């Protein structure tokens, strides 16, 4: 079996399309990934991120476009000829093989001689800290251990590209955090190029070198975690990045970079992110950045609910027109109290109605 190259400089997706009957799951992806990068494909369910991953792995044929490793075309190869490692959402461990056999499977398929195979499997077992579980069947392991076996099985063959399909979504919150660090550690120690599919923006922000936000089968924004977190280019990306409050308003003017937005009679300042044809615009604000002003400026709301969050309080307020606003408060508030909410201009993003 000829398996693909173990090294490359760039992976190019050139107009990669995928159609299922009448439904277009991917509308022409263009993306260049550098060797050694950790890329997160982020998006809500149904955005095409898993389809994209399966197309790269060769599990789904592309309907159009090309996938290139440097100048070598790979979208025409069968999955077993591409030599990419893949970690599946449900782990897909072979239930009839021991952990050791599972991890050694890829090496055996490549015809690696037995002594070397054993040595590399031992190294992979050590990398995911499962030396003591080597002779067990997958069914005897916990979810986190199974996930580590799946990762070891994918990386032991030293693939040029590791693909991960929501590998942590079946784990509980604590384990997810541990495995996240484990994945980051393994990536950094091996330097393998990784494409990681997730719908969890926290996971994407903490793991990735670059995040690709997908929506409806198309790329919405590509950027470093810091870029995406601070300055999402679209309202739906902002929504994904934790800008939970979205308030409709009317543009009344500009002051330098800042837009002045009239929200139910109150004018607030914000950063203009996407131009508007008319006057209508939307302000996006994270709950943590929206606080009671303590003065008579700010958007007036009636407090609906207050939750204790350890460091402070999380409040839900309703404006005169019925819009819900989530905000942070350093002190407790009574339900039904009237407060005014405001945020720093740099923390308010203003999006025009043209999405």
């Amino acid at each position, binding site marked *: *079996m000829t*398996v693909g190259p173990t090294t490359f400089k760039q992976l190019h997706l050139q107009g990669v399309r995928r159609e299922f009957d009448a439904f277009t799951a991917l509308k022409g992806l263009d993306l260049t990934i550098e060797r050694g990068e950790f890329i997160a494909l982020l998006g809500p369910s149904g955005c095409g991120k898993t389809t994209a991953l399966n197309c790269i*792995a*060769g*599990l789904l044929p592309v309907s159009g476009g090309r996938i290139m490793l440097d100048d070598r075309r790979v979208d025409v190869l*069968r*999955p*077993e000829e*591409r*030599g*990419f*490692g*893949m970690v*599946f959402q*449900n*782990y*897909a*461990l*072979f*239930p*009839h093989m021991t952990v050791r056999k599972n991890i050694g*499977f*890829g090496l055996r*398929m*490549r015809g690696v001689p037995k002594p070397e195979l054993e040595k590399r499997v031992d190294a992979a077992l050590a990398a995911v800290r499962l030396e003591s579980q080597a002779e067990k*069947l*997958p*069914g005897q*392991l*916990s*979810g986190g*251990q*199974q996930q580590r076996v799946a990762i070891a*099985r*994918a990386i032991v*063959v030293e693939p040029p590209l590791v*693909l991960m399909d929501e590998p942590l979504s*079946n784990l509980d919150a604590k384990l997810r955090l541990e495995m996240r660090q484990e994945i980051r550690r393994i990536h950094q120690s091996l330097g393998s190029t990784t494409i990681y599919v997730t719908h969890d923006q926290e996971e994407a922000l903490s793991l990735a070198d670059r995040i690709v936000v997908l929506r409806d089968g198309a790329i919405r924004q590509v950027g470093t975690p810091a870029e995406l977190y601070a300055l999402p280019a679209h309202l739906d990306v902002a929504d994904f990045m934790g800008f939970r409050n979205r308030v409709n308003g009317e543009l009344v003017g500009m002051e330098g970079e800042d837009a002045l937005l009239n929200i139910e009679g109150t004018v607030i300042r914000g950063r203009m992110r996407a131009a508007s044809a008319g006057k209508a615009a939307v302000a996006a604000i994270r709950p943590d950045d929206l606080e009671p002003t303590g003065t008579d400026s700010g958007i007036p709301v009636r407090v609906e609910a207050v939750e204790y969050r350890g460091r402070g309080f999380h409040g839900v307020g309703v404006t005169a027109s019925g819009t819900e606003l989530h905000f942070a408060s350093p002190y407790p508030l009574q339900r039904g109290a009237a407060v005014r909410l405001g945020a720093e201009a740099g923390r308010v993003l203003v999006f025009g109605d043209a999405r």
Partner: protein
Amino acid sequence: MSAVLEGRAEGPTLRQRLAARGIDGATLLVLPCVALILGLFIYPFLYGLMLSFEPKDGSLFGNYARFFSDPFLYGTIFKTLRLAFPVTLLNLLIAIPIAFRVRLMRRQRLLTTLLVLPITLGTVLVAEGMLFYFGPQGWFNRALMAVGLLSTPISVLNGYWGVFISLVLTGFPFTFLLTLSYVTGIDPSLENAAATLGAGPAARFREVFLPLLIPGLAITFCLSFVQAYSVLPSAVLVGDPANATRVISIAAYQAAFEEYDYSMASAIAMIMGAVQLLVVVAVLGCRSLFYRGPAAGAKG
């Protein structure tokens, strides 16, 4: 001692302890089923077993001695095996590749319905159909003669191959549907995982599918085999019931309804059951050498 008793008294009630072992009110629902099994299976079986030890000559093992000393009688065991074994194996070997193809199809319902039909028709109707189809004036012979492959009609019927074909026709749907359910029970992501790890189609079948399928295929083999081994209508209708296809059920039928020796018929039925049991135990015994857990992705 008293401490132990006190501990008991403070512990869970009898009802709670029974429930912990899975015995509760709903357990009573199995009673009608138990009654049915007792009345329709266990009792007739034991009655037949007792009857087989009361032969006409008065000795305890007279029937069994007669069966195993008369080649015309004990030969039926092997004649039936000679039919049932290859038929079951062939059905299984045809069913596996087709099941692998069908598992990827989107409209399985229609195919499944088509395949269930022969089961509902039963062996008699299939044998009747074969009589016409393979007869001297049937389509089979006329077609072969028309294209010049034959000069005179050949007789497929009234012999081993007639029964063989009839058993394949009636047994295949059953074997196939069981096989399909086992094949589709394997998590498709296992195949994807094997492919991304560099396993080609042959290696994927050998390393992943086959080991996971073997337990199911063993069960399928047993059920199909037992069905084929108890063949009667087609052995008479399209076979050679006096010689080549004198299967064991014919021997039992003749003992019961031609010689009116119910005791002998019971003994033959017991022998038939014992042969089936031997084969089933042997096959299932081999099965225990393989992995038998869930064939899914083993999620914790």
